[in-house]
């Protein structure tokens, strides 16, 4: 059970899966430890009439509210943005929307172009081949020719616009703003043994059809067939080091709560921007008294979310917003790049999110005071149901050292392991960007025919994108990892999740996280002979 392996991966989510698949061709002995289990798509919410209710229960976004046995608690009381994640084979891709936009070339040159934050230690062009490889593996739908990006191919045709998309497209065109069908990790046609999308709606509660590219249906089946050992219900407590300061394995608890020490030649951490710093900070030793790979003191610092605004429009005519991939309809990037005329740096993306189901419409009507109880209920409800469309607006967050993931002094998980504590403040730049974005969002909805608009910013439960807490860089005093995700302090320790981002960009990070994981795997494969010299 605990015989030494060549490569130990901690975490079977977006990046762990991509990395494992890529490394499998080496025929090395590769083991992945995952605290969750394989999901059963036949139990996903859309298979029952109570599908909307389950987002308040076992398919909720917050690990604190969801409290599955696989979850660990997160103290996010000191943050206006709350943590959203999922713990299973596939990780948070089980619940993500599948929105798959790449970073822009300028996102890799923030310091050079805008004088803030840091440049990435490589360029868009360096990452582009891995983006393309990942697009194929995840089955990305979209449309080539987007003027917001350098030329790129897209494997599958775009998700349908529906009446919501067409209406918003006309609004974008009226204003002369950019829009494009979203790059989406959603199989719009049969792709690599995956059934095509049938427009179930709430991708963010798991895809019962298997069309959404969560890594339990994309990378993992291929990686396991190629010989990778994926061990579930194994929660890692700490990474261990030898007398030379090299990582030599991990201590974990199995499904029965038994403690094991798994030895390994190379350790790869893929636990997301909160789980990874938690694990590193929990891995204290004589050589690393402040946590593993933390001689810079930057493990857990520079936490970035994407502050979100949500703008919802109410329309007079019926729309089809309860159908189709909820989070992926179209993207608008008119305000993505820095404009010196604005009072903030960097920018944001509009992501058109279709509408609501019948329960969501009722709860929205209740929360906005639009639907009374009693004799006026049905008339008021009829003016809302099937008549909403809107967007989330994803704003770039800049790194600030005072935004942190630390270890909570009291809170522990089910195995007694100290839980993470998040401390985060919205910057002045983010607040100005959110205000600008919210106003432009309302302008867009009004141009599209909305009769009323409703704004929520920052959107509290939008802590989906967890970045920056083990950042890459060339200077060991200013970064935790080098340009391939290897610890400056521990040469056989790699990090491959969103922790590594020096800056966040203004788009969903998953395709970049996976492209980075593939790039790190490529580096290791090409340098195996000299990796530990």
């Amino acid at each position, binding site marked *: 059970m605990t015989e030494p392996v060549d490569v130990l991966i901690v975490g079977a989510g977006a990046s762990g899966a991509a990395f494992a698949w890529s490394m499998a061709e080496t025929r090395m002995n590769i083991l992945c430890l995952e605290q969750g289990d394989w999901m059963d798509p036949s139990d*996903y919410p859309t298979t029952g009439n109570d599908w909307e209710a389950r987002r308040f229960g076992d398919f909720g976004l917050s690990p604190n509210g969801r409290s599955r046995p696989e979850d660990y608690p997160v103290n996010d009381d000191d943050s206006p943005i709350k943590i959203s994640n999922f713990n299973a084979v596939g990780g948070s891709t089980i619940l993500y929307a599948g929105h798959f936009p790449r970073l822009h*070339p300028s996102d890799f040159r923030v310091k050079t172009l805008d004088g803030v934050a840091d440049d990435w230690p490589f360029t868009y062009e360096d990452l582009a081949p891995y983006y393309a490889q990942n697009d194929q593996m995840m089955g990305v739908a979209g449309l080539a020719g987007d003027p917001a990006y350098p030329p790129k191919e897209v494997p599958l045709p775009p998700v349908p616009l529906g009446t919501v998309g*067409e209406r918003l497209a006309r609004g974008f065109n009226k204003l002369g703003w950019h*829009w494009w069908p979203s790059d989406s990790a959603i199989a719009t046609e049969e792709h690599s043994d995956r059934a095509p999308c049938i427009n179930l709606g709430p991708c963010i509660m798991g895809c019962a*059809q298997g069309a959404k590219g969560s890594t339990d249906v994309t990378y993992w089946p291929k990686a396991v067939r190629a010989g990778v050992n994926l061990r579930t219900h194994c929660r890692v407590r700490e990474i261990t080091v030898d007398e030379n300061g090299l990582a030599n394995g991990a201590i974990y608890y199995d499904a029965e709560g038994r403690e094991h020490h798994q030895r390994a030649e190379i350790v790869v951490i893929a636990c997301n921007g909160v789980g990874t710093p938690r694990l590193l900070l929990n891995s204290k030793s004589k050589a690393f008294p402040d946590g593993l790979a933390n001689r810079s003191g930057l493990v857990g610092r520079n936490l970035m979310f994407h502050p979100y605004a949500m703008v919802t429009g109410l329309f007079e005519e019926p729309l089809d917003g309860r159908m189709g991939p909820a989070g992926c309809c179209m993207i608008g990037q008119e305000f993505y790049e820095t404009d010196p005329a604005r009072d903030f740096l960097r920018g944001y993306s509009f992501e058109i999110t279709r509408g609501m189901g019948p329960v969501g419409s*009722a709860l929205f009507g209740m929360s906005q005071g639009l639907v009374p109880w009693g004799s006026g209920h049905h008339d008021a409800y009829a003016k809302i149901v099937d008549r909403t469309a809107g967007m989330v607006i994803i704003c770039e967050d800049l790194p600030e050292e005072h935004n942190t993931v630390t270890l909570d002094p009291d809170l522990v998980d089910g195995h007694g392991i100290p839980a993470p504590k998040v401390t985060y403040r919205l910057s002045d730049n983010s607040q100005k960007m959110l205000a600008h974005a919210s106003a432009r969002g309302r302008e867009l909805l009004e141009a599209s025919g909305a009769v009323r608009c409703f704004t929520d910013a920052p959107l509290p439960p939008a802590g989906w994108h967890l970045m920056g807490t083990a950042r890459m860089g060339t200077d060991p005093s200013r970064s935790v990892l080098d340009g391939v995700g290897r610890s400056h302090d521990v040469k056989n320790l790699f990090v491959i999740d969103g922790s590594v981002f020096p800056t966040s960009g203004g788009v969903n990070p998953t395709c970049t996280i996976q492209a980075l994981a593939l790039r790190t795997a490529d580096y290791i494969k090409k340098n195996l002979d000299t990796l530990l010299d």
Partner: protein
Amino acid sequence: MSTLAAILDQIIPPSPDGRMPGAGALGLADAIEEAIAGTGGRDWLADNLAAIEAAAQDAHGTSFGELAAQDAEALLRTVDEARPGLVQGMLFPLYIAYYQHPDVARALGHEGRPPHPQGYPLEKGDLSLLDPVRARAPLYRQV
């Protein structure tokens, strides 16, 4: 009809045209009671049901469930004013239970079934709407 079912029928009454069912007649009382009890509100609910019954007896000399619809809604509003949060405390579980019910979905013109496995047809949309976007120069900054 139980007191709770009669209350639910006032919060979401049947529509005048008979198309939408009342929440009480739909048989949701047990589910609402269970949901409220599940969040620690069993005593709160029992106390409020007793208060409403007492008010019905005081005002009309009969049980709440026997009142005409107009009288029942007026009385429920009076008690709700005196006991803030009474109705509000039922809305969340009630709206979920009511609007996920297949009969209600069908009355709304929806399918009254889970999304999976049939799914839904959706128009691909008119991609010629992209023509003005395609005509633009690159938006991304050259680096």
